[in-house]
């Protein structure tokens, strides 16, 4: 659409010519286009679920465009209503894309920027005061993302026998789970796993390395949520016809 940047006479002629052209068009291409766009969108379950309101508005504008055409309201007004309908369909596509991206965002496993590890004293499975801010952050994150599930993997350093370390790592995972539950996170969203001493992140030859290995790692992901996979190729608003 040409945008008038000139003074009144030119503007009025430009607008008038525009509307004249619209009035003189025998077939209302824009109305047909809007109908086609609406038909396609209303058959897409992702769109009907994500943007019922915009689809409804599009339908209402289409109806008023059709009625206007029948009652001779003028081509300019018919074209205008068709345009509004078409744009509402476009908004509906965007809403569906947003919904899909949001779902994918939530289901993407992520590291919590250093907040995913809780460390323990040798042979202990007690949450230390130092670990509390980490657990507070995790609990807050989980409360803000109610669909998010977590898997807590307990680990141990190589001190002691491997059998005991599996049990110890399980108690560590459970301790973190209980700490989250006591902060209001539903136990049903938390899965635990005993990793024993088999997954060190640092050497067991130094005190510092062993400290790194006495940990529970919180993995945020959507594992075991529903039956189907929620992921699809990223960055492709496949529902957007543009």
């Amino acid at each position, binding site marked *: *659409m*040409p*945008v*008038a940047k000139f003074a*009144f006479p030119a*503007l*009025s*002629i430009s*607008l*008038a*010519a*525009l*509307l*004249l*052209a*619209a*009035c*003189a*068009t025998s077939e209302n291409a*824009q109305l047909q286009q809007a109908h086609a766009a609406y038909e396609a969108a209303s058959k897409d379950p992702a769109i009907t679920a994500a943007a019922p309101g915009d689809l409804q508005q599009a339908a209402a504008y289409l109806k008023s465009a059709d009625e*206007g055409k029948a009652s001779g*309201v*003028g*081509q*300019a*007004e018919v*074209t*205008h209503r068709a*345009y*509004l309908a078409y*744009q*509402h369909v*476009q*908004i509906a596509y*965007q*809403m569906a*894309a*947003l919904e899909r*991206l*949001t779902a*994918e*965002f939530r289901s*993407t*496993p*992520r*590291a919590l920027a250093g907040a*995913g590890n809780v460390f323990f004293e040798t042979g202990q499975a007690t949450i230390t005061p130092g670990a509390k801010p980490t657990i507070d952050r995790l609990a807050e994150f989980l409360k803000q993302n109610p669909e998010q599930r977590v898997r807590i*993997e307990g680990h141990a350093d190589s001190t002691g026998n491997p059998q005991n370390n599996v049990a110890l790592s399980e108690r560590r995972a459970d301790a973190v789970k209980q700490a989250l539950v006591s902060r209001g996170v539903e136990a049903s969203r938390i899965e635990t796993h005993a990793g024993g001493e088999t*997954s*060190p*992140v640092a050497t067991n030859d130094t005190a510092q390395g062993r400290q790194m290995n006495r940990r529970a*790692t919180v*993995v945020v992901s959507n594992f075991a949520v529903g039956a189907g996979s929620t992921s699809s190729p*990223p*960055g492709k*608003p496949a529902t957007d016809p543009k």
Partner: protein
Amino acid sequence: MRVNTAHRHYRAGAAAVAALGLLAACGTSPQSSQSAAMPLAKQAIDTAIRDGAEQRAPGDLATAQQKLALAQKSADNGLFDDARRFAEQAEVDARLASARSRTVQASNALSQLQGNTAPQRQ
């Protein structure tokens, strides 16, 4: 909406007169509804800007802003049906700008997350 080249041969004055006649014929809506449409369009544009449309949906936002300006010009010139239509279109264009901006934002956030996802298992 495209100006048909077939109409080029009309002399501008004649076209304007003829079109204004048709405009009057096409006109159906009361003047009052255009006065409601413009504030709604302004509001939608403000919302779009708050949604980051200047960065993430500049095309849709510019269209909305240009149509709002045209609505104002049309109203100033007494073309109230045009003013209402431009304002109503500006509003829906701005709403599309908002929606597109939020989608782009979500897409960016997702890409960033997927790019930053650190392996959790050693």
